[in-house]
């Protein structure tokens, strides 16, 4: 059955040259998507465009604007929303969850270690250069252990899928991963537009995320805090591209959204300026970079930070989430060693695979990479957002040659990976429904306990064949479903 007047047939969804999450590799409908097939087939074309317009209007109305960490771009831009959900079975998710939590534990253990005794370096399991000469290594927090030994309280792990049972981690985000507002709002909008879908499918809720986040943040209050911890979110301000997300989370958690100027240090503590006078702050979920946190400790020209904050932090008067210095665990060069961290600290085998990575700083790796440049993906070590990146198979000859020159000039600044056949999920496109490549960013919360809300941000590359899911480069988002048992 092809595209019909009433709806879209399944074989227009199928795809032969890769793993499609709805139709697998052979074109047989996979169980988690069973009911969605009926849904999409029964949806008249007119209804679909009506719903699409409705979704957009809803997004525009709530004013959600969005930028994934470091992507930049127009702050008022709306990211496209695709109504076709991405679905995981309970069993698939259980496996992912174990792997994600394992990784989040290992990353935090690594951070405690490298700011403490540095056992993993002493044991020769990771080159000391990658840790201590790393821009993100923050010597100002060396020797300081944050409450509960947690540095990264919200770990966003970017995952891609290449087969029914194959998941790879593309990147870890240990600082302040953004995008969770999209997970929450996509779900809200889907439930509003398609309540029937939620009656027919048993879908795990994600809306308790804010409550779990609040609990996680409160659980890492400093020892000096007696009573109910006062948690705040620190934003760089309303011109920031993720301001919407900051205010949404503050609203959902029922905590104050503050700017640097709203906080001040006095004696041993940090206070918020309120209409009833200074109010002590115990936990700061900060959405600003380390360098801007405190002009007395880091960049003296920072206008968005709080002078004296780091002294209070290091003397146990306030908690900062994520802890300053957490970024040393998530750059692309350290990434290669995360499986090693899992083995070293947890004594377990990693449940989630890394993508094979060549460190161009190593002579033999560089030689290999230069040899196979047109087949590989090359990324800058500190880059993000899909910029400064070569996708070999999709690149022109000139582009490849340009990267060859860049690599030769400064090999240490690049890593290379094989081009993965990312899984696809059916997506509404101009002509109907077609497979598009996706990734996944779940948000793992680490405090006294380690928790994962069943869902995440699914980004989709809307251009046919494109592997770049970044919103700045034609990416959109989908609602991510985890089915109940």
């Amino acid at each position, binding site marked *: 059955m092809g595209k019909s007047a009433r709806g879209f047939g399944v074989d227009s969804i199928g795809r032969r040259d890769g793993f499609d999450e709805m139709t697998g590799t052979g074109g047989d409908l996979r169980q988690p998507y069973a009911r969605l097939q009926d849904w999409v087939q029964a949806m008249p074309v007119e209804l679909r465009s009506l719903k699409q317009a409705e979704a957009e209007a809803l997004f525009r109305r709530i004013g959600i604007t969005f930028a994934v960490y470091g992507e930049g771009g127009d702050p008022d831009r709306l990211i496209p929303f695709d109504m076709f959900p991405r679905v995981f079975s309970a069993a698939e998710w259980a496996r992912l969850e174990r792997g994600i939590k394992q990784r989040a534990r290992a990353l935090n253990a690594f951070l405690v270690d490298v700011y403490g005794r540095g056992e993993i370096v002493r044991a020769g399991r990771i080159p000391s250069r990658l840790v201590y000469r790393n821009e993100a290594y923050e010597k100002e927090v060396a020797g300081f252990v944050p409450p509960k030994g947690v540095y990264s309280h919200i770990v966003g792990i970017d995952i891609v899928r290449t087969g029914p049972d194959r998941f790879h981690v593309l990147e870890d985000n240990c600082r302040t991963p953004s995008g969770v507002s999209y997970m929450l709002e996509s779900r809200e909008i889907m439930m509003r537009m398609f309540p029937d879908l939620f009656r027919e499918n048993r879908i795990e809720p994600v809306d308790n995320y804010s409550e779990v986040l609040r609990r996680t943040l409160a659980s890492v209050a400093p020892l000096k805090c007696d009573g109910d911890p006062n948690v705040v979110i620190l934003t760089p301000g*309303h011109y920031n591209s993720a301001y919407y997300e900051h*205010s949404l989370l503050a*609203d959902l958690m029922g905590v104050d959204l503050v700017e640097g100027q709203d906080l001040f240090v006095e004696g041993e503590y940090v206070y*918020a*300026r309120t209409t009833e006078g200074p109010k002590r702050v115990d936990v700061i979920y900060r959405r600003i970079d380390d360098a801007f946190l405190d002009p007395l400790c880091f960049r003296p020209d920072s206008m968005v930070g709080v002078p004296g904050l780091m002294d209070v932090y290091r003397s146990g008067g306030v908690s900062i989430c994520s802890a300053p210095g957490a970024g040393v665990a998530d750059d692309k060069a350290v990434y290669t060693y995360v499986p090693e961290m899992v083995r070293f600290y947890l004594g377990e085998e990693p449940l989630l695979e890394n993508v094979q990575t060549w460190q161009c700083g190593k002579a033999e790796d560089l030689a290999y990479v230069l040899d196979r440049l047109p087949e590989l993906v090359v990324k800058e070590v500190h880059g993000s957002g899909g910029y400064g990146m070569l996708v070999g198979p999709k690149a022109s000859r000139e582009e490849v040659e340009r990267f060859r020159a860049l690599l030769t000039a400064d090999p240490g600044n690049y890593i290379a990976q094989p081009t993965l056949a990312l899984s696809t999920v059916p997506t509404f496109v101009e002509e109907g429904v077609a497979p598009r490549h996706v990734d996944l960013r779940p948000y793992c919360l680490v405090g006294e306990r380690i928790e994962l809300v069943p869902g995440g941000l699914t980004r989709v590359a809307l251009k046919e064949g494109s592997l770049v899911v970044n919103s700045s480069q034609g990416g959109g988002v989908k609602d991510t479903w985890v089915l109940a048992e």
Partner: protein
Amino acid sequence: MLSRTAENLYWIARYMERADTAARLLEVGSRISLIPTAHGYRSEWDSLLQATGMAAGFAAKYGDPVQRNLESWLFFDRDNPSSVASCITAARENGRIVRTALTTQVWDALNTAFQELKQLEREERSRLDLSRLTDWVMRHAAMLRGAIDATLLRNDGFNFLNIGYYLERGDNTARLLDVKYYVLLPRVEFVGSGLDNYQWTTLLRAMGAHRAFHWAYGGEVTAAKIAHFLILNPQSPRSLITCVGGIANHLARIAKAYGRETPVQARAGDMLAGLEGETVERVFEEGLHEYLTRFIGEAAALGHAVHEAYFSGEMR
């Protein structure tokens, strides 16, 4: 509540009220300039601009007061921080920052005004007549006011919003009144002339108080009646006493909610008591201009005291 949130709410109100005043000023100015005067068209506008502290900026940008330039300056010009466009934009931006402290209706009122403003800015200027512009501003100001009154929780934020409204309105009334009495009519013999009456009436009209005035006083329009109406009559929605009374009321509610007073309550109480014990005769004895100047100064000091007590976040 976070001091900055309270301050943002307060400024939403001040900016919207200021936008409303800018529109009214534009209306007064163009009406007055329609009739021949002893001082000439130019000086009428100069004095209006002077009273609102916008004269220097206008002169620097445009030079001579030409009607069209004045409209641009008071309505559209972003270089003028008190223009309608600047005020509405600032009010909406303050609203965006504290979005979660607003109801959907209040946000919609602010946002709609802003979106429509952007449309107006795109329209050809020759197609926009002045009364349409001023009506538009007053309508949106009223819609916001209505949304606030109808939907907002009566918490401290609501009180800070209202303090902003009353403070700005009191200041604006004093300034508009001052323009009329002091600048437009520097020579005492003009007072009471037909021309004078026309201008007073125009002023009342701009304040939307034309009919209310006649209802309340009747008979001939005199300077004393107008001064009483705009300064001392608690029934007049724009009188100084109404504004100070509103401020004192909302400050008292805040003190009650927080369980303590600050120096600002006493200051507002003193101002109100002063107004309640005042008579028009004594105001004229002091000199209307002197009286209004003193009031504007006291209102500014009150605003500063509100800032110290609640927005600095340092009051112990």
